[in-house]
């Protein structure tokens, strides 16, 4: 069928879609371009310079915030992924499980409810029970809202996998634990890996909850960036933003590639 008479085609769709992708990426590109501007004022271009990258990397408060974010994100990722893996195994593989549907909704609750409500709710809870440790507060809250992001890819992988391999292992007298370690775990690894990556990214990016729970010594990267934005134009900000955009780009690409690989060689 020639393109011209293909009734499934709508004129102007291609141009509109190109414009859409420009719209999606132009704002990020603007930040990246301005990060190389020597002028202190973002909007006024003077000349190309990488000096703001140097001063960003020497910024002690920024590095402290990055460290806090990394500590919280790594612990929350491990906790959330473990919880999600156990829940996914129980929900998909468990036999005679009651409350299956309710449990699945509970795991996904953080996706359904507005984050600001959860943020103030945990703030009140922590102040009632007198929890003072800033890092611990962040780890608990982050572990909770990262769980569904780890859960969904793991569940998808488990659902797409046939039981044959596990049954074969059992037929060959493998114990439940050996079957899990040598058969199930390697097979669901793509889902597990991308789930963990997404949980990590969500934790690193979180602003609303972290800002609500932030106290001295537990300022995360997004909370620090917010304070820079609030303080007015800080020329380092564009350099910091560019570094973070590139870092998320790499991590998200790895996570999404592994996830789609896993989906393609379905078993």
């Amino acid at each position: 069928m020639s393109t011209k008479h293909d009734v499934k085609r709508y004129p102007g769709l291609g141009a509109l879609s190109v414009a859409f992708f420009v719209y999606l990426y132009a704002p990020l590109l603007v930040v990246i371009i301005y990060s190389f501007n020597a002028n202190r004022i973002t909007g006024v271009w003077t000349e190309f310079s990488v000096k703001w990258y140097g001063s960003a990397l020497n910024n002690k408060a920024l590095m402290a915030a990055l460290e806090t974010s990394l500590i919280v994100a790594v612990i929350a990722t491990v906790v959330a992924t473990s919880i999600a893996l156990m829940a996914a195994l129980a929900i998909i593989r468990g036999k005679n499980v009651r409350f299956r549907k309710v449990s699945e909704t509970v795991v996904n609750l953080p996706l359904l409810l507005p984050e600001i409500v959860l943020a103030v709710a945990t703030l009140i809870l922590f102040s009632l029970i007198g929890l003072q440790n800033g890092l611990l507060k962040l780890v608990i809250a982050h572990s909770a809202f990262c769980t569904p992001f780890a859960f969904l890819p793991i569940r998808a992988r488990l659902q797409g996998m046939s039981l044959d391999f596990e049954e074969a292992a059992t037929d060959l007298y493998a114990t439940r634990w050996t079957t899990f370690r040598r058969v199930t775990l390697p097979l669901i690894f793509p889902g597990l890996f991308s789930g963990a990556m997404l949980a990590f990214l969500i934790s690193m990016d979180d602003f609303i909850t972290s800002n609500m729970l932030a106290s001295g010594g537990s300022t995360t990267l997004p909370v620090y960036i917010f304070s820079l934005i609030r303080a007015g134009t800080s020329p380092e900000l564009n350099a910091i933003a560019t570094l973070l955009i590139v870092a998320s780009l790499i991590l998200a690409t790895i996570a999404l590639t592994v996830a789609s690989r896993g989906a393609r060689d379905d078993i």
Partner: protein
Amino acid sequence: MSDTAHTAHASAGASPARRRPLNLAYLGLLPSWLIMGFALLLPILIVAAVSVSTRGAYGGFEWGFDLTGYSQILFNEGWEGEMEFTPQYLIIILRTIVLAALTTLLCLVLAVPVSYFIAQQSSSRKALLVYLVTLPFWMSLILRVYAWMIILGKDGPLPRFLEVFGAPSGLSLMYNDGATLAAMVYTYIPLMVLPVFASIEKLDGTLIEAAHDLYGNRWVTLRRVILPLTAPGIISGAILVFVPALGAVLEPILMGGGKQMMMGSLIQLQFGGGRNWPFGSAIAVMLLVFVMIVLIILALRAARKEAAA
């Protein structure tokens, strides 16, 4: 399945030394119930309790039954205890609903043609384009909003561009509802494109040809064939955008400035500088109720469809 569970239960009751080991599945579910119960369900109950408590003298709250948190939404208590109607918070609630609805609508208008275009591509190009749509979603929300502060702000690319067409110099497009809306559409659009694309991709092309054979032009085909058949994707995309848009915080704070608040930024303020926890909790409960209404309507629809099938 529930039958076997029942018999297992009954036999366990009959013989005290039952051989059946503990169902490991419940052990697997335990951690998720524990963390969601402790860090999510319990705190939400506490918020509901705080919303009907008294404001503490130095911020925070004191237990007790007091509906001031809710009455404050509509009335302001005067010096002599008289209740005076104040529309300011009602305006914030209405702005929240209108901006969230507009965001959903604009995302939809953008997502349908783009998804349709992506669905027509070869499978490798399809994968690439879906990846490109998804990618920004995994980038820091605060930075995506910040990018729009640069674009719309004083000396930003868009005001500069408009100057060419005679706009006054030094123009800033920031700190109004339009700026908030622009940032919201930008940040939530991937959530709309993905489900809409998923259902457009499944669309049977022969139905479009059939509509054409029956003398339906492109517009009629779109309205009568394509849109009704992709309704499930459109509805789930609308929910995925509308629900978080109702709770938007960063967009109104950064783009709308101090005065153009939404419910999310109002809550944030009550627990930050404002220090009125019962009032903030009351707004949080309202926001939660709005979201629940949307989700319940959706669940009822799904149940009705299942019953019909």
